[in-house]
């Protein structure tokens, strides 16, 4: 028996050694400066979520072109390889492996869908490939496991829901009833759970008059709008986005629902250019971050203007938040490579050295600085405001903005969001910054 185990162990050891040699070969190639830096980028290129995915790809193409003109990363030109995440997670998992094993990418940017990110992060552990979660928002990724090679370069669901709730509690503290109408998928359900948990402790006793989760990609909300008109809630929450949100807002506007209830729309920014003046003034709007075109005090106004102008010049539309999230991921990548190359005395980092450079990294965006915590989660400020119109933009932009510092509205490391939200008390409201006039 012992002999058999020993033989098996010997065989396994030989196999492992052969495998290590193969991988060492790849590693050795990776450690020398490559002729190009290949980056796999998963995004929605088809289906209804392509309203986010295609603009993000456009932003990536624009920024990589600029980056390559400026000499690339550490003198190495960058080549993005885009993969459509619309066919689903099974397909994406296969594509992730293909990108790493066949294409030899050094880095992966994944993904818009939370389901995609939940599928990709275990692969980053297994394949030891640094993976930037560039847009997905689920809080589960870093709260339910450790992922040494995964980093999220923007905020996530909890601050993106808590900040609008806090804004509502400041702006309209006397509301007594609420209705929710979210898309029927993970984000729609999770965001309502986060909102309800926080609302129940920060303002107990609010009556929920309707909970509706129409199917993702619904093309008609007229019945839901009728029900909301009949229920007359003080507040209507919708974390919906894309065509679903545009249809909901248009049908609500046509039937004067905005006159009866205050809307809270945490993910509305990308839809506002499409809606133009159809969007009503005086309702609470968010952008999954702080990157509004009329940010009251961006860290680098010239860089923000340069990016917005370049994007508009090429694509004839304003960049929306997935474009900014893509830009953040690229900034983080540049900063991490610079840090890793410096730490290695000018040498090209391997996978482990690159991942180590990401941990605790602080990088600049046009509007602020983002720090990646020890668990890999980025701390991105949130700006929420009231929809308003001015001479500069042909669509609604926020006024009376509140800038919520990321640390204030993010779940502390090691805790789960729902558990943390339950510990909040009404005193928490005293810590909310004052609105910025304008």
């Amino acid at each position, binding site marked *: 028996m012992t002999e058999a185990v020993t033989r098996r162990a010997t065989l396994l050891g030989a196999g492992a050694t052969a495998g290590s040699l193969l991988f060492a070969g790849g590693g050795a190639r990776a450690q020398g400066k490559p002729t190009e830096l290949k980056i796999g980028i998963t995004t929605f290129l088809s*289906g209804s979520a392509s309203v986010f995915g295609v603009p993000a790809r456009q932003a990536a193409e624009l920024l990589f072109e600029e980056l390559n003109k400026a000499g690339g990363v550490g003198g190495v030109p960058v080549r993005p390889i885009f993969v459509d995440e619309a066919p689903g997670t099974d397909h994406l998992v296969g594509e992730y492996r293909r990108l790493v094993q066949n294409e030899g990418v050094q880095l992966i940017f994944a993904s818009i869908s939370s389901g995609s990110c939940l599928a990709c992060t275990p692969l980053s552990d297994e394949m030891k490939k640094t993976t930037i979660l560039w847009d997905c928002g689920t809080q589960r990724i870093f709260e339910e496991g450790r992922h040494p090679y995964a980093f999220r370069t923007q905020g996530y669901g909890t601050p993106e829901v808590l900040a609008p709730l806090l804004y509502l509690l400041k702006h309209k503290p006397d509301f007594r009833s609420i209705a929710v109408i979210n898309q029927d998928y993970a984000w729609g359900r999770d965001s309502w759970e986060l909102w309800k948990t926080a609302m129940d402790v920060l303002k107990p006793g609010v009556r929920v008059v309707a909970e509706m989760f129409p199917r993702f990609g619904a093309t008609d909300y007229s019945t839901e709008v009728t029900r909301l008109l009949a229920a007359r809630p003080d507040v209507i929450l919708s974390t919906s986005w894309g065509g*679903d949100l545009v249809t909901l807002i248009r049908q609500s506007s046509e039937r004067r629902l905005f006159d009866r209830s205050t809307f809270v729309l945490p993910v509305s920014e990308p839809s506002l250019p499409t809606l133009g003046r159809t969007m009503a003034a005086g309702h609470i709007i968010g952008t999954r971050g702080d990157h509004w075109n009329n940010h009251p005090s961006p860290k680098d106004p010239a860089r923000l203007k340069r990016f917005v102008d370049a994007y508009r010049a090429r694509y004839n539309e304003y960049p929306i938040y997935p474009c900014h999230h893509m830009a953040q991921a690229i900034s983080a990548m540049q900063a991490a490579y610079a840090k890793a190359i410096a730490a290695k005395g000018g040498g090209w980092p391997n996978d482990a050295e690159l991942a180590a450079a990401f941990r605790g990294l602080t990088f600049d965006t046009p509007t602020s600085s983002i720090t990646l915590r020890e668990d890999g989660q980025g701390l991105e400020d949130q700006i929420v405001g009231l929809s308003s119109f001015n001479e500069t933009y042909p669509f609604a932009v926020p006024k009376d903005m509140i800038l919520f510092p990321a640390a204030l509205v993010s779940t502390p490391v090691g805790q789960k969001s729902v558990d943390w939200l339950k510990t909040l008390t009404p005193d928490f409201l005293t810590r909310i910054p004052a609105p910025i006039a304008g």
Partner: protein
Amino acid sequence: MGTWLAENSLLLGLALLDGLANAALVFMVAVGLNLVFGVLRIVNVAHGSLFAIGAYTAASIGLFFAAQGLPSWMGYAALVLAAVAVGAVLGPLIERLLLRRIYGHEDVLQLLVTFALFMILEDVQKLVWGVQPISQDAPLRLLGTVDIPFGEDVIPFTAYQLFVLPGIAVATLIGLAWFLRRTLTGRVIVAVTTDKEAATAMGIDAARITLLTFSFGAGLAALGGALASPTLALVPGIGAQTIVLSFAVVATAGLGQIEGAALTALLIGLGRSIAVYFAPEFEVVVPYLIMVAVLLVRPQGLFGVIETRRV
């Protein structure tokens, strides 16, 4: 039950109004699919793309008219123009170049070919119109809203939703029934549907009839999309949503049955509306629950007839 009905009669009234508009749109798309299947015996997955292209075309024409400063009522002309353009251009192209080659082939091949066409047309939409939502609601705003009493309150409905959509659906149903039963061309179509070989033997140009019917069905799908366009935001994927629901209607109605499509669309429209009020979690499955319930009792569909198998 009586008490529940009394307590919720006002809400049921609202659900009825919503359901009628919903049913009208479902009918407009499904009837085209049903007609095409009846004559061509092809389950056309690309029907959803024709709906989407009709909607996009109507919005584009409407936006063009608005940019030219034309009066708002021209928005309605845009809806009709879009349906005619899609039916007259895409219909013959698809039938002549693609479908004609697969008549009489296995069902699975027909499904694969029309699904491939659907995928191609989805990408064509993205190439032409991009991925950001497009909307054009001039026809809807032109007519304004109607306040429906609701206890001491009022509920605003758009006149477009209350009158235009159901009105056009009813007119289409009556017009189509009249056309198929009272005109020579309609009777020829029915003859080809009933027995293509016999009709051909009688001197009917079946190839011309299939071309005409497919183009007409494509136009109906496009008209459904055009009519829906003022109420919704056009984004990639709307065709897929539509085709799934249309298949449910056609299967429930009985393949090739126009009145059946109307009744089924009404059942589904009302069922979905009532679900939104009283059991919103079931709204998505209502069409399929209705379909399963009907097919369990009548496998040939509500209005379908049992056909003897030809050996």
